[in-house]
């Protein structure tokens, strides 16, 4: 046996396993996306089992492209992912820089900062939508009510009362209404994932070269210039990693969307797949293939963009 054959042979089981792991679901999805396949049909019982005789060609794709929610779901997927990435990276960098200094109680602060990341997504969504964002019982409703109460009590105040009596009564924002559901999802996911970004950025900041900073101080760089020209480029790679990992995770958001509005006015591709999969597996599979394509486009686009602006 040649010296190269043995290692290959030993690697083979792992490689073959991983290959199956990836290829089988992908192949099945592709297959289902080209046939008529539904879970329940009284008129056409032959469609309820997958088979080549039910071949539909690109019919499922056409059906998905023409369905009223598809383009909205694509747009919304990108909007949600983009907003979350933008917010988590900004908050992550700011918080990481802030807590990178030594201060009393550092350990506790760091543990507390990381903790949102350990909460289950569904629990996170339930907590946010009911306890914070609910227009009646949540913090949202209570705060608005409180403000309205204060203003109402000032109506009778001497001298300035006329001014406050001109104020309108504030209305709490309902995050279950169609357009705002996406904002609620963005808020809760940002809250949960900012710690992840902080964690990665903080470890990276600790490896920053002190002498470079001192050199920059002597070169006349102020705090902002040091951040802009040393810290930010130093964080370029971790930012790229955070963006990539989060893009993968957030393109498949589901629990939050389900819990906030059951998809009313706020769908993304995975949610659309879920809706199709109630009965029409063919259409769901076709949507899945679209989702794979979208994920790849997003990944390539993000890598290029992040790499270019920051590595420079």
């Amino acid at each position, binding site marked *: 046996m040649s010296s190269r054959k043995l290692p290959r042979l030993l690697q083979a089981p792992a490689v073959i396993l991983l290959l199956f792991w990836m290829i089988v679901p992908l192949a099945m999805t592709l297959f289902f996306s080209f046939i008529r396949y539904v879970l329940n049909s009284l008129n056409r019982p032959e469609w309820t089992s997958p088979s080549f005789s039910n071949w539909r060609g690109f019919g499922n794709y056409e059906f998905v492209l023409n369905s009223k929610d598809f383009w909205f779901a694509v747009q919304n997927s990108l909007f949600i992912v983009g907003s979350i990435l933008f917010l988590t990276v900004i908050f992550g960098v700011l918080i990481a820089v802030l807590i990178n200094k030594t201060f009393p109680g550092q350990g506790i602060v760091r543990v507390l900062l990381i903790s949102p990341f350990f909460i289950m997504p569904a629990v996170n969504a339930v907590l946010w939508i009911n306890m914070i964002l609910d227009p009646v019982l949540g913090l949202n409703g209570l705060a608005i009510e409180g403000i309205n109460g204060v203003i109402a009590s000032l109506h009778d105040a001497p001298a300035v009362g006329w001014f406050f009596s001109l104020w309108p009564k504030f209305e709490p924002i309902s995050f279950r209404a169609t357009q705002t559901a996406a904002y609620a999802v963005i808020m809760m996911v940002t809250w949960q994932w900012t710690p992840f970004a902080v964690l990665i950025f903080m470890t990276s900041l600790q490896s920053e070269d002190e002498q*470079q900073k*001192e*050199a920059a101080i*002597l070169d006349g760089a102020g705090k902002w*210039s040091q951040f802009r020209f040393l810290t930010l480029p130093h964080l370029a790679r971790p930012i790229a990693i955070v963006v990539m990992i989060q893009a993968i995770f957030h393109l498949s958001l589901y629990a939050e969307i389900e819990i906030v509005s059951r998809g009313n006015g706020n769908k993304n591709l995975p949610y659309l797949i879920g809706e199709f999969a109630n009965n029409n597996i063919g259409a769901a599979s076709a949507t899945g293939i679209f989702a794979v394509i979208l994920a790849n486009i997003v990944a390539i686009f993000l890598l290029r963009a992040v790499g270019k602006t920051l590595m420079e």
Partner: protein
Amino acid sequence: MGQIVLENVVKKFGDTEVIPPLNLTIEEGEFAVFVGPSGCGKSTLLRLIAGLEDTTAGKVLIDGEDVTEVPPSKRGLAMVFQSYALYPHMTVRKNIAFPMRMAGMSQAEQDEKIEAAAKSLNLTDYLDRKPGQLSGGQRQRVAIGRAIVREPSAFLFDEPLSNLDAALRVGMRLEISEMHKRLKTTMIYVTHDQVEAMTMADRIVVLQGGVIEQVGTPLELYHTPRNKFVAGFIGSPKMNLLEGAEAKKHKAHTIGIRPEHIKVSTKSVKGAWKGTVGVAEHLGSDTFIHIHGVEGCDPMTVRAAGDVAVKHGDTVYLSPDKSQIHKFDDAGLRI
């Protein structure tokens, strides 16, 4: 431009006093070398001058102006670090331009200075590379270039050659000396290598435990070391220090004799010290012989010019040059 004065400068880290009250004047245009064993406070002293550390007490004056409270960037000094401290994501050109960019200099002026600096440092072909693609010596040159374009009133070097290999170090040493002759700017150079100190310095400041042991030209330190520490630190191989009976003969607590001031002979010489060869290092131009058995100093090192045919176990006779004997009292000070 470029006289630096330290007045009663003290530095404490918490309760530990790293530098007790210290006074030092570095004249304009001088090449001063701070030398001492690691942990002697030489780097701290340099950082105090640069402003990267705050003084606990005392004053730092540059050209007669008190800069103790002035931020580092306003002191008009440029520093070259041991790790080069180049900005890794910027090209060589941008690295050199950085201080000028921070000062808001016009692009045309920047380009002109970069070209000039690159030319004098042989970096013209590397201007568009990143530091990661350069060798250690080239990186150090970029760091020097970044310092030059600021036209500082003094250059501060913090062990700049320690990360280079031996051959490169000799080359860079010459380049920095040449640069000093050309620019005639004050330079302060920190090193633990006494060879660098001897070859480059106009004046050497020997430090130990934050205290200045002696300040002087390289040859002053070589010929008239103020105490045992300086005597042992300056010169290579190290000076032999003898205590006991032999020292008593010279009415001293300790006597010192440099390896190059001892004659070695394989034949019996009257009044000579007798010993056996431990190791003989044959360099061709010189022979360093380490000798055991001489009372009060073991091993004793002798430097003989040329190739001397001695080997391990040989008995040799050593006669010191009487005029070159250094005498020290029981406090270690020169008599």
